[in-house]
């Protein structure tokens, strides 16, 4: 760390500065872009990470006992909690053999000063839609599995994702939280009473949800139209010129390549991102499996 700070000093000529910490702070608030650039020039980032390095990812599952499945994910400072509640509903006429998955991402004013109270803003809405798309594209859960009685009764999985601390890279954290929470979800047993035609639920007897695929995302930022960095923090996100999120599953199939505009990217650069995303997928799947198994072992 000390060495990296030195690099910055050289480019800024610190001798003219009175006090070193004050100098750094001023540069960061007055010229945030220059501040970041000076680090990127040295192939590192202001928090000491490499360009293609993720922050520490911590996963905690089953922490909310009122939810049917839950997970808390920390990606550096970014914290996302996912709670899954299952409810019963009638399937639609168009898809009588399918259940529902309803994911929603919320960015409450609690998680950062940039979000205001009230209905979800554009970022939260876009994130909700992205998560919904990932669920559909990756087939992480097949909605057929949620059917209880064809045309009559099915499960609705309300996947409520809430950000508790916003420090960039919301989408990656959301996908991990969702996946871990789904793997943690246990649905109660339902039988249809043949006489009254009404469902009976045995809350004690629960079975696990079948998770078909393990999609994991990796988000990138493009700085100055050329430099790719992985897992951006919120400061980096607001300064960069483009965002990219690649979601892959365990078979190295792509479930989403989401780039909502920004500066252009060549196919070659995109390939680099996909490679990094594949590595990340293995890393996270291993983490989730290990944590899930640790809970099972403890029981």
């Amino acid at each position, binding site marked *: 760390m000390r060495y990296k700070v030195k690099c910055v000093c050289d480019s800024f000529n610190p001798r003219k500065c009175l006090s070193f910490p004050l100098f750094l702070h001023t540069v960061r608030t007055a010229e945030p872009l220059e501040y970041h650039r000076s680090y990127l020039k040295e192939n590192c980032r202001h928090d000491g990470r490499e360009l293609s390095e993720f922050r520490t990812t911590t996963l905690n599952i089953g922490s909310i006992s009122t939810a049917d499945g839950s997970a808390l994910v920390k990606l550096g400072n970014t914290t996302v909690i996912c709670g899954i509640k299952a409810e019963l509903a009638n399937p639609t006429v168009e898809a009588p053999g399918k259940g529902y998955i309803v994911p929603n991402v919320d960015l409450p004013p609690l998680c950062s000063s940039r979000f205001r109270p009230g209905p979800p803003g554009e970022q939260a809405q876009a994130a909700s839609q992205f998560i919904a798309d990932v669920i*559909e594209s990756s087939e992480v859960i097949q909605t057929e599995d949620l059917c209880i009685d064809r045309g009559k009764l099915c499960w609705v999985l309300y996947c409520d994702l809430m950000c508790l601390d916003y420090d960039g890279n919301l989408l990656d954290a959301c996908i991990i939280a969702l996946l871990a929470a789904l793997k943690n979800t246990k649905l109660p047993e339902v039988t249809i009473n043949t006489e009254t035609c009404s469902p009976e639920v045995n809350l004690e007897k629960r079975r696990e949800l079948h998770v078909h695929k393990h999609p994991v995302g990796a988000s990138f930022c493009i700085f100055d139209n050329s430099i790719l960095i992985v897992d951006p923090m919120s400061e980096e996100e607001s300064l960069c010129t483009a965002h990219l999120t690649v979601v892959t599953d365990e078979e190295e199939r792509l*479930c989403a390549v989401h780039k*909502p505009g920004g500066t*252009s*990217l060549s196919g070659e650069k995109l390939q680099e991102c996909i490679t990094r995303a594949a590595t990340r997928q293995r890393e996270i799947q291993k983490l989730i499996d290990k944590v899930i198994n640790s809970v099972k072992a403890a029981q």
Partner: protein
Amino acid sequence: MEVYGSSGVSLREFGCEQSLLSRPDGSASFIQGDTSVLAGVYGPAEVKVSKEIYDRATLEVLMQPKVGLPSVRERSQEQCVRETCEASLLLSLHPRSSLTLILQVLHDDGSLLSCSLNAACMALMDAGLPMSCLFCGVTCAIDTEGRIITDPTAAQEKESRALMTFAIDSKEHRVLMSATKGSFSVNELQQCIAVSQSASEKIFQFYRDSVRRRYSKTL
């Protein structure tokens, strides 16, 4: 995967009419087969204090579905179109002002997002806003047999295994925006990008032709 049906890899007939509305500063309707989107642009104009950005113009994109109110899906498409436009527009030339782009879906018969992008670009051109490059949208579908279909219709979209929409810039033909649905392999992705790049040539040629036609009498 190497075999392509001749019918799949083509763009449906497409067309565009500019300046068709009197109120907006720029307007265009873009038609791809039966899919049609109307776009209107207002600005640069006064901006709300809460949305003001000190060093560039604020761009707002609104997408109006044909039936019902805009939902989360429209919001995510708005985001895609907005950030694509932001990348190509020279917004820093109009600091502290607002640009509004409204997209009205007139008919959806597949490839809606790419049609919206094309309509947006034509409307921005009609409004005479300074841009660093043009952009166009191309949608590719991969059917169950792994064949690539460009500019799919709604029926083809429904039967496809994966759907990708790319925005390509006119300068370097690189990917400005990417939105995908369904799962696909890396190779398929790269192929679709390459196809979109070559299809974008046709659309850019069309842009050039229509501008040439439009100003043929003034030149």
